[in-house]
Each structure stands twice: as structure tokens, then as C-alpha cells.
């Protein structure tokens, strides 16, 4: 036989390769830059491990109110190899800031002026010292590993793009029913379910438990030490939270606290938080609730408020995760692939035991379509309503959020459209229903079959009934993050068209499947679908549009 040379690379678009390489370069470089920054920090942490422990005397320690947080300044003296030094650093950073008043108490207790504390001195430069050094390498190593994923994917894309190798045809794509896609799908669903359960646990369940436990806490008078609206800058917007620090006494012992509510989440809307702060000026007396079992535990507002229920929103992710999981598990079973040794040539059958579908089955469910649309409508409008309420509140508080109103308008209109669609599907449930009798015989290419139908419900409402045999190609593909399905009908035969209610109520139709065409075929992305469409026109009501999928077998072989 004549051999063909197969060492060369399969030609593909150079522009695409260049684009992929640029993308990979940027992607990998971002990861590499991040990894380098973390590694520099790690190097400093490792170096500080060799710093020498020494005693020091605290000369001064103060916590200052910064704009929205606290700043710690300290001064201490220490000796190293007979020389005396003055240190002013708490950690490796010059300016140490923190948010919690609990930290303030811890620092002022630990570094009381005149007391002796422990510091760490750089043996190479004894004028450098800190009171606290980072010793754990775990967060840094974790960050480097995380950044490595970006580096490997990014630079790996470049290598794979230009690697001079032609992949086998059977490895150039995903095998039908293969396990790779299934694993990715399972991972995707698991992440969704995990997010949807873990976040509500911490954002809703835990605060709710604490809120219930706090009903037994005792009211105590306290003095406001600090009152401010704290801003938290995110990627897209800034959110705000109320910060109130206070001092109270239990059995003559002073305590300080700064918990306003158990749910510490911040949100948009500055005005209402500013109003709370205005009602709690510095020096004013307020009532706080203290845990009788631990006097250091206190809170201003025991009730979490309506914002607590925002913590339930991520449950939607879990619901979607479960839905996708069920859909995926009900999909076609995966084929098995493996190798068995033995003999010169080992045979391995890869065909999974395939289910034989019924000759006729209904496509879709009206109730299912309604609930799906209802779910989408609730999901969409639930999210939009959060922003809508916030915008309405801003209008009510004499602000004029014109931009956010204009931005929200199309989302609100789409939400109204979804509500309308859900209502349409609800009405459709009560339309007359077409039914086909189950067939005892199978449908095959080149064969004629008789199908019996009947319309359940009020047939008188239907003005015209049409039954059509169709065959179509369905090709599903991805563009970016979206998935599309193109359909092309290659056969269409009208089997019944009538305006007579008696003929509509029930009857028989003959289905002739031409011999020279294609049988039913179903792969994950490509299908040949044979169907009977039953259409009925109904005045002032959603029309009857039922479809029955026919399983058309290959041509029967005469034995």
C-alpha cells in the first residue's frame, strides 16, 4: 500500500493563531505579574522569619480615629548587641490601619506604655524592627498557585496553538456522549449549588440564629464614641454600611463595641445610612444589648431588618445548579471507552446500550413551559426589584437618580414582558389538547403508517385545525458565551386541514415516510427531527400548537 506523509501541521488561520497567542500572552502575563508581586511579599515574609526576637519597652501607643477606620501608632525602645534603638513599626507596613474596635482594645491592652513586649529585630540592619511579623506562608503560596493557573492556561494556549502536531480526527473534538463535557457540567453545577448554599448560610442562617439568641440579651446604656457611614469601593460601584462605636459598663468594668447589626453586609443607598448616623451623634446615649454570658458581646440593633433576606438571593444559584444537574443526568448516557489486552489485535466495542425511544412522543409540556417561564420571570424581576426599590427610595428622598432610572427602564420593561409571557403560558394550559394514540408498529423510511388523533377539550373554540408532517435539521453551535440552534425544514407534508369540528374531534391520518431521505438522528449538537405538528386557531386565546416527535427508523431490511 502507498503511505502518506503525516508529520506536518494541519493548516489553520494564522490570524486566529495570532489572536489566540495575544490573548494567551495577556492572560498569562496578568497571572505572572500577580505571582511576582505575591512572591516578593513571600520573600519578605521568609526573610522576617530569621529576624531575632528581643524584648522592648513600649514608650507610647495610641489609636487615632482616621476617616473611616483606626490608625495605630506605637513607639518602643529595644537593645541589640549592646546598642539601643527606637522602633515605630507595628508590622512591616509604615501605616497600620484597621476597622474593628475590638482590635483597638486588643492593641491598647497588649502595648500599654511602660510595659515590656516582644519585638523582632533585623540582624542585618538592627535599626529595623517590628512588633508583629507575618509567619504563615500558606496564604502567599495559595495565591501563587492560583496565579499559576492563569500562567499555565495563558502560556499553554500559545504552546498548543503553535505546537507542530496534527491531532487525530477522533481527538479533534468532543466525542458524542463523552465524559469530558459531563465532568465540566458536574463541576459547574456543583460550584453553583455550593455558592447557593454556603453564602445564604453565612448571610442569612447565621445572622438569624444570632438574632434569635440575642432576644435574651440585656439592654444597657452606652455612649457613642464614633459614628460614621463607611464606604466600600467595589469594581463597579460603592456600597455603604453604618459604623457606630460605643462604650458601656457592666459591673463597673468598661467595654467597647462597634456592632450595629448582626448582618454586617453593606449595600447601596447612602441617604438612609447617613440618617442613622445623624441620629447617633458622638457623645449621645444609646441602648445596646449585651450578652449576659459574655459582657464583651453587644449589638445596637437586635433585629436584622429586611436586608437580612437579601442573603437568600444566592439560593437561586443552588436552584439553577440542581435544575442543570437534573437535566444533565437525564440526558443521553455516556459511551464507555476502554481497552482490553489479548491477541494481536484487541477488540473493544464502544457502543453504549441505547434506549429505543417510543415511536411517538409529545414535545414539551405546557405546565412545564409555564413553570419555567414563571421561574425565569420571578428570578429576573426579583433581581430587578432590588435595584428598582433602591431607585424609588432615592426619588422619595428628593434625590434625582436620572441615569440609574434610564438604565433600569429596559430591564423593567423586559421583566414586564416576562410576566406577560408567563400569563400567556398559563392561559395556554387551558387550550384544547391534541393527543395521538400510541403506535403498536414502528415508523421506518419508505413505510406508510396510520396514526389516530383526537382533540381533548372544547373543539368548538378551534376555527381551523392543521396537522403537518415535518422533518428538519437542527444544528446547535456556540458564539462567544451564547448558544444558538439553527433549524432547516427539509420535508413538509400537510396531512389534514379542516374547519369541520367533527373532523377535528378525532380521526386518522396516514403518514408516508419517503424512502430516499434520512431517518431520525440525535447527537448532542446535531439532530434530524421528524414530527407531527397539530395547529389550531383559537379566537382571543393562545392558539393550539402541539408537536409530537416521531421516531423514524432506518429502512427495514427484507430478510
Amino acid at each position, binding site marked *: *500500500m502507498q*503511505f*502518506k*506523509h*503525516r*508529520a506536518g501541521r494541519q493548516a489553520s488561520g494564522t490570524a486566529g493563531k495570532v489572536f489566540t497567542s495575544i490573548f494567551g500572552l495577556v492572560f498569562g502575563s496578568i497571572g505572572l505579574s500577580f505571582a511576582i508581586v505575591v512572591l516578593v511579599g513571600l520573600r519578605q515574609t521568609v526573610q522576617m522569619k530569621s529576624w531575632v526576637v528581643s524584648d522592648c519597652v513600649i514608650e507610647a501607643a495610641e489609636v487615632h480615629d482616621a476617616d473611616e477606620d483606626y490608625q495605630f501608632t506605637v513607639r518602643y525602645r529595644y537593645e541589640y548587641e549592646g546598642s539601643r534603638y527606637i522602633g515605630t513599626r507595628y508590622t512591616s507596613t509604615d501605616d497600620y490601619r484597621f476597622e474593628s474596635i475590638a482590635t483597638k482594645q486588643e492593641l491598647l491592652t497588649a502595648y500599654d506604655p511602660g510595659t515590656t513586649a516582644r519585638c523582632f529585630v533585623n540582624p542585618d540592619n538592627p535599626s529595623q524592627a517590628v512588633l508583629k511579623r507575618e509567619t504563615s506562608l500558606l496564604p502567599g503560596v495559595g495565591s501563587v498557585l492560583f496565579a499559576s493557573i492563569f500562567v499555565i492556561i495563558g502560556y499553554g494556549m500559545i504552546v498548543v496553538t503553535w505546537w507542530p502536531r*496534527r*491531532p*487525530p*480526527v*477522533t*481527538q*479533534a*473534538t*468532543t*466525542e*458524542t*456522549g463523552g465524559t469530558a463535557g459531563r465532568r465540566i457540567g458536574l463541576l459547574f453545577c456543583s460550584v453553583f449549588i455550593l455558592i447557593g448554599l454556603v453564602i445564604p448560610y453565612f448571610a442569612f442562617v447565621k445572622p438569624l440564629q444570632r438574632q434569635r439568641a440575642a432576644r435574651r440579651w440585656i439592654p444597657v446604656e452606652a455612649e457613642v464614641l464614633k459614628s460614621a457611614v463607611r464606604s466600600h469601593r467595589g469594581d463597579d460601584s460603592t456600597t455603604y454600611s453604618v459604623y457606630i462605636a460605643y462604650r458601656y459598663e457592666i459591673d463597673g468594668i468598661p467595654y467597647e463595641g462597634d456592632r450595629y447589626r448582626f448582618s454586617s453586609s453593606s449595600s447601596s443607598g447612602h441617604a438612609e445610612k447617613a440618617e442613622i448616623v445623624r441620629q447617633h451623634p458622638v457623645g449621645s446615649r444609646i441602648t445596646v444589648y449585651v450578652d449576659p454570658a459574655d459582657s464583651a458581646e453587644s449589638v445596637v440593633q437586635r433585629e436584622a431588618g429586611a436586608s437580612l433576606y437579601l442573603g437568600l438571593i444566592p439560593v437561586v444559584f443552588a436552584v439553577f445548579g440542581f435544575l442543570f444537574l437534573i437535566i444533565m443526568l437525564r440526558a443521553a448516557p455516556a*459511551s464507555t*471507552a476502554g*481497552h*482490553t*489486552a489479548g*491477541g*494481536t*489485535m*484487541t*477488540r*473493544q*466495542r*464502544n*457502543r453504549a446500550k441505547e434506549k429505543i425511544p417510543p415511536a411517538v412522543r409529545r414535545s414539551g409540556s405546557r405546565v412545564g413551559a409555564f413553570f419555567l417561564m414563571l421561574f425565569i420571570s420571578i428570578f429576573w424581576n426579583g433581581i430587578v426589584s432590588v435595584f428598582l426599590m433602591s431607585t424609588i427610595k432615592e426619588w422619595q428622598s428628593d434625590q434625582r437618580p436620572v441615569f440609574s432610572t434610564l438604565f433600569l427602564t429596559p430591564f423593567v420593561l423586559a421583566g414586564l414582558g416576562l410576566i406577560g409571557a408567563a400569563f400567556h403560558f398559563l392561559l395556554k394550559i387551558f387550550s384544547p389538547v391534541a393527543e395521538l394514540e400510541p403506535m403498536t408498529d414502528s415508523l421506518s*423510511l419508505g413505510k406508510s403508517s396510520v396514526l389516530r388523533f383526537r382533540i381533548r377539550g372544547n373543539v368548538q373554540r378551534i376555527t381551523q385545525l392543521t396537522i403537518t408532517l415535518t422533518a428538519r*435539521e437542527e*444544528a*446547535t*453551535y*456556540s458564539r462567544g458565551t451564547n448558544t444558538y440552534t*439553527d433549524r*432547516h*425544514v*427539509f*420535508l*413538509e*407534508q*400537510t396531512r389534514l386541514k379542516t374547519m369541520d369540528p367533527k373532523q377535528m374531534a378525532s380521526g386518522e391520518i396516514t403518514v408516508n415516510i*419517503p424512502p430516499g*431521505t*434520512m*431517518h431520525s*438522528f440525535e*447527537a*448532542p*449538537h*446535531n439532530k*434530524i427531527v421528524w414530527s407531527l405538528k397539530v395547529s389550531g386557531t383559537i379566537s382571543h386565546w393562545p392558539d393550539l400548537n402541539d408537536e409530537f416527535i416521531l421516531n423514524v*427508523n*432506518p*429502512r427495514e*431490511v427484507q430478510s
Partner: protein
Amino acid sequence: MSDQIGVTLERTAYRPGEQLTGKAGWQLSDTPKKAHIRLFWKTSGKGTVDLKILEDRKIDAPQAAQLLDFAFALPDDPYSFEGHLITLRWGVEVVVGKATDCAWFELGPDGHTCRIGATTAR
């Protein structure tokens, strides 16, 4: 010496259930670690590619140069077809190390690809 590999079929058109026969051979500079002959179908066209390997035969202890006969019992379906959006082709592929070759054939009741492009309305 550059690597050479090839697969040929006795015929390029088959009916469902028939026996497909052919030859596969290769001549490589190094002894390959593994070799496979695969019977598969694959789609092309508008949709994302679907592929199904029906048989995957592993060649035990493959040589650097080897010529062997193979035979596959063909299934009843799916037929080879060409549509407006989708084309389905059958093939036999030989993969030896990093070298590969593929031979395509048609499977249908008349031994030909079914063409389904036109719309019929009655």
C-alpha cells in the same frame, strides 16, 4: 527518514450491516508505544462537531514498520447524509504515536450518502 502512515479501504461505499475491510500500515523512525484503529462517524457543518467512536482497536506491541488487515462489522445506522446544515461522514482512522491517517466511506441503504437539502411542500 520522515514518518509515513496510511489506511485504505476495500470499498468506499457500504450498506448497513455489511463487513468493512481494509489495510493499515506505517513506517516510523521510532517504535511507537501505542497504535489504534478506530471506526467512527463525525458531523460537520453549522453545528458543533459531534463524534462517536464505535470501535477502538488497540494494536498490541506495535512495530516501527507494520502492515495489517482489519475488518469491522458495520451497524445499521446512522446513514451518511448531507443536509443544508449538517453533514455526517463515516471513517476509519489509524493513529500510531503522533502519526495519523483517515479514510472516509459512505454508509446507506443504497451504499450512498443521503442528500436532504430540498424542502418538500404538499
